[in-house]
């Protein structure tokens, strides 16, 4: 979204213009949902986190000073909501499983059936392993590797120094490599 348009929409939203905020939601809801899904591993929870993120964003829009991008600010709300939710239900968590990967993971492959099966298995195990990561490492890994943000942006979202973010990503990688060593070996 164009930065000037975005600023105008934010200003109008602050004055209670629902239509303006609808446009902001329209522009960013997909990315927020995707991040929430990766943090929680559940479609239902991703939906809840996305809703709560936009509700909080609207209610505290006056606190957004424009020092970061609006998207970065939304992400920071979503990460907090997502990690809080995970913390709340850590004992009865519902993770992505090998037998129930996201819809896109079930796309057919041009490879042989054995290899396809192995890939599906790997994808499922990878999802499981990600959900076993501590919340702050999972958030750092998701933002850097899957969302493609810079270390600087991730540090702002997570409210940690860049060095801490880099260390958490490295720890997460180490963990995943150890968990999936059999599948990663050439």
């Amino acid at each position: 979204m164009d930065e000037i348009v975005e600023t105008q929409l934010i200003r109008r939203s602050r004055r209670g213009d629902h239509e303006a905020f609808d446009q902001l939601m329209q522009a960013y809801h997909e990315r927020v949902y995707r991040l929430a899904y990766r943090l929680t591993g559940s479609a239902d929870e991703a939906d809840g986190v996305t809703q709560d993120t936009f509700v909080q964003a609207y209610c505290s829009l006056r606190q957004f000073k424009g020092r970061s991008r609006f998207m970065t600010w939304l992400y920071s709300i979503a990460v907090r909501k997502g990690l809080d939710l995970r913390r709340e239900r850590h004992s009865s968590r519902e993770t992505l499983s090998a037998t129930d990967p996201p819809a896109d993971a079930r796309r057919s492959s041009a490879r042989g059936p054995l290899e396809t099966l192995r890939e599906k298995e790997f994808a499922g195990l990878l999802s499981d392993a990600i959900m076993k990561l501590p919340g702050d490492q999972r958030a750092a890994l998701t933002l850097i590797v899957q969302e493609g943000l810079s270390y600087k942006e991730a540090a702002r979202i997570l409210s940690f120094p860049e060095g801490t973010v880099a260390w958490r990503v490295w720890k997460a990688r180490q963990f995943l490599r150890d968990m999936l060593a059999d599948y990663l070996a050439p």
Partner: protein
Amino acid sequence: MDCKTSSELIGRLLDNNLSDAEQAALREHLVQCPVCEKLEREHRHLHAALRSQPAPDLPPDYSRRLREEVWRKVKMTERRSVSLSFRIMAIAAIVMLSMAVMLLAWRLHDRQKELRQPGVASETARRGGSSSMPLPAIRLPKNALPENWSAEQVQAFVSVQDYLGGAMRWMAIDGNQVEVGMSGSGTSTVGEKNAAREVVVVTLQYVERQSDNRTTILSNPQFVLLPGEEASVRLSGRNRDSRELFRYRVKAAKEKSGQISARIAFDCEVPDAAEQRPVIDSPINAEVMVKEETPVLLGASGDATRRHELYMWAGMRSIAANGRPSSGKGDHL
């Protein structure tokens, strides 16, 4: 570069977060170290898997549903916050009201306590500048004015008012001194001739009490006032030889409770201290609520050998429609 550093830098290489120099050093190490090179390949595989992890599909019609849910929750949040503010305001109002009621009850209790001690002015009676001297019980001088004295004053008031055409507001009399207050515009409807009305009669007595209990009345004015009118006068002392001047400002009205509320300001001027009269150095300002004809002590000064006291009492008097003082019930004239 050692293997430990190399393993730490591999991830940052994949994230494009290495400087050119770091990249070059790492690549050089990877070429030379098969363990680290294997590690790099594994991480590259993992990185690719993470990157290609499919994004979740949005549920159908998600955008519309999200909007509906968000606005519903926003409305609930706003309602909760309004309700919370209202609750806080209500609690604050209740607390303030309770405090006001407690304060009022305390003041009323205090006032009733005062009224149970006849003759003592309320705590609002203050003697400016002096320390809080305990006020003695009332012992009016034996030569205090006779009871029917005020009847003469009211009669005089009625006569003078009739003569002046109804513009008179108050009258102060002390011995042969008479002061009259008139309404400024002359359009006043107060004191209309032949109309039934009430006046307040306020008597003040400033006495000097000596150690041998001899009492001298220094000033003894009587005020006949229309309720709510303020009289302001300068009167000479009753002692013909004295050159003292007494200044009075008097305002009184009947309250719903039946009591009379009065505001009295008093001070005294002694032109020549060489006359050895006790100098009245501080004024008296008092706001009192008095019962009909119950004397109150407004203030005192001096010491055991020579003491000055200001007393006051007041009553309501009706003036009949014929312009004469009424002799009906409650009329003590």
